[in-house]
């Protein structure tokens, strides 16, 4: 471009010089004419070159800015048609690149969001064992706070199984799912899915997805324990019934006094077996949601009075005083009346069972913002603090021998917890060695919180 301009310009200048020579030869001589011509040539070349390249320089500068990352830079309109063509192409290129970059950025953000939101821990490492990518869940599982990318896998976790698998995946190039027992930072069972990254026959890295299955393992253990517990609980009365039946068959039937005694024992154990089976059924129905709950506005005081009437004989035999005055004027709660009765029966029965003669059981209700708290407080033997967190578990007993003597199935409190939770409430317990207090929180039937009886009916 530039040489073309200079070429045209030289021809013009030379013709001009020739004309000049013809006229002014006599005035300056040939030397002078040539000198003048040369100076004109130099000046005009410089001037013309300046004019011809200025738009080109601008294009180059803009292109360089685009190259340096100022991708939204666009070239201004140029008058020179050829330069304008160039500018247009560069502008188009820049626009396309910008769109491409935006798309990539959006894709990256989306991937980042997915990785961040995933519950599973993800780790990507290169074949040298250097970590290239992890997500927050991975950091959580391995208890890491600092930057992880760029560090070696062995610096992150020294767990031998992790490194053995990593090496195996690199050499075998096979996907694999396996379980990993972490012992640090805390005991965890992880299910690890290993995937090799292979590009054109070369392993470029390994991806590992860590799924925390500690809870599932824990549940499995609980289920196993439950089955073992149920079998044990069922076996005990059956063994006794069978034993006495055998004794009767072997000749005890001949002795009416003994036979009556044995049959009585058999009856009481059959009774226990029946209540155990019925409690188990209730629990399983509650858990599967097979029991329809008819929640409506219920007066706690009415239900409690009914329960006291049901248990009156037992209460009188034990010589225990039951105080319901704390329920007077208590607000109504949203509950299934039959189920609430079951809850209060279980709690009152327990309280009476574990309170020595002459003791008292006090029922009260407190109106709080979170709901109505029904408290059943006894002056009994209390619950050791180490047992408190597990007291609502199925078959959990503080003193198993004593509980069975009292005819308990070990399921009562578990049923209480389930019923209350199904109605949107909570249960809790407090014990300080001088009696225990069980709290049941249920939703208030009236939507407005009055708080008027709160102070009067507070437990303690």
């Amino acid at each position, binding site marked *: 471009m530039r040489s073309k301009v200079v070429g045209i310009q030289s021809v013009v200048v030379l013709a001009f010089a020739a004309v000049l020579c013809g006229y002014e030869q006599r005035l300056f001589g040939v030397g002078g004419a040539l000198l003048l011509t040369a100076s004109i040539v130099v000046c005009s070349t410089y001037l013309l070159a300046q004019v011809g390249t200025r738009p080109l320089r601008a294009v180059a500068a803009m292109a360089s800015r685009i190259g340096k990352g100022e991708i939204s830079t666009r070239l201004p309109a140029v008058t020179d048609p050829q330069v304008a063509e160039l500018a247009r192409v560069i502008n188009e290129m820049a626009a396309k690149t910008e769109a491409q970059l935006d798309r990539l950025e959006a894709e990256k953000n989306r991937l980042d969001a997915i990785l961040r939101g995933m519950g599973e821990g993800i780790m990507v490492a290169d074949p040298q*064992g250097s970590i290239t990518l992890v997500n927050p869940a991975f950091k959580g599982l391995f208890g890491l706070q600092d930057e992880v990318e760029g560090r070696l896998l*062995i610096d992150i*976790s*020294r*767990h*031998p199984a992790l*490194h053995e698998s990593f090496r195996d995946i690199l050499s075998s190039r096979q996907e694999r799912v396996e379980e990993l027992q972490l*012992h*640090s930072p805390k005991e965890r069972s992880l299910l690890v899915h290993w995937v090799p990254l292979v590009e054109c026959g070369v392993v470029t890295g390994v991806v590992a997805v860590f799924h925390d299955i500690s809870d599932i393992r824990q549940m499995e253990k609980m289920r196993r324990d439950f089955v073992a517990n149920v079998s044990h609980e069922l076996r005990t009365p059956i063994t006794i019934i069978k034993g006495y039946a055998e004794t009767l068959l072997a000749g005890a039937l001949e002795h009416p006094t003994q036979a009556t005694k044995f049959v009585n024992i058999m009856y009481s154990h059959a009774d226990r077996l029946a209540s155990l089976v019925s409690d188990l059924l209730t629990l399983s129905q509650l858990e599967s949601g097979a029991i329809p709950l008819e929640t409506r506005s219920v007066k706690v005081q009415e239900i409690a009075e009914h329960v006291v009437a049901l248990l009156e004989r037992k209460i009188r035999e034990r010589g225990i005083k039951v105080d319901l005055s704390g329920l007077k004027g208590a607000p109504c709660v949203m509950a299934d009346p039959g189920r609430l009765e079951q809850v209060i029966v279980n709690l009152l029965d327990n309280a009476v069972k574990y309170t020595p003669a002459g003791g008292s059981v006090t029922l009260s209700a407190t109106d709080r913002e979170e709901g109505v708290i029904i408290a059943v407080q006894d002056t009994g033997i209390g619950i050791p603090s180490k047992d408190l967190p597990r007291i609502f578990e199925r078959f959990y007993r503080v003193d198993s021998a004593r509980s069975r003597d009292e005819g308990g199935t070990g399921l009562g409190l578990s049923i209480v917890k389930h019923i209350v939770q199904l109605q949107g409430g909570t249960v809790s317990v407090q014990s300080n060695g001088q009696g225990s207090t069980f709290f049941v929180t249920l939703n208030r039937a009236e939507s407005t919180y009055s708080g008027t009886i709160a102070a009067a009916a507070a437990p303690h």
Partner: protein
Amino acid sequence: MNKEHVSSQFDSNLAAIRLKLLEMGGKVELMVSKSMKSIVERDSELAEQVVAMDAEVNRLEMEIDEKCLHLLALRQPAARDLRFVTLALKTVVDLERIGDECVNIAKRAVELNREPQLKPYIDLPRMAEAAASAVQAALDAFVRQDVQAALAVCRADTPSDELHDQLQRELIGFMVTDPAVVQRALAISCISKFLKRIADHATNIAEMVVFMVDGVNVRHARPASQP
């Protein structure tokens, strides 16, 4: 190892030693945790796994030794690199000993698990916890080249000693009242001693980390506790 070396081969040799050392550390950590579980959970199968892992640890010790000697002979490392190789040579010995102590614990566990439990294990898991976290902290300090963390391991050795003494007194009480429990009490006493030694080895490793990073020798600077 932060400095650039002319020879990348040399760097990769150092990195390989470091990798193997940490791998060995990881195995030993798992042995400590498994050996203790085999006692507390009365699981003799875990104890057998610990015994089996020792062979692997011994193999790694020899491999690291060989790599270090090779590097010393061929490259003559200096300054920090020399200190690193020295640390590796000494640390493998401590790690291997920890592995041996774990095997000792596991063997006692198998014995103990055959008989009824003498007493609820309370101090033993605490000592094991202290020993395991000392080993872990020492290795973490090595990974991060963290002198402060290493010095903290050196200082934390004492509670393990106190627990050991306390347990010994309790066991003597058991043995005095009932001679039938002497064998089990002695086994527990040995385990307590093994755990104490594990903590001592962890302290050695931590001291070597301080030496490697700062070039300062902190050994025998405090009242020595003889294993």
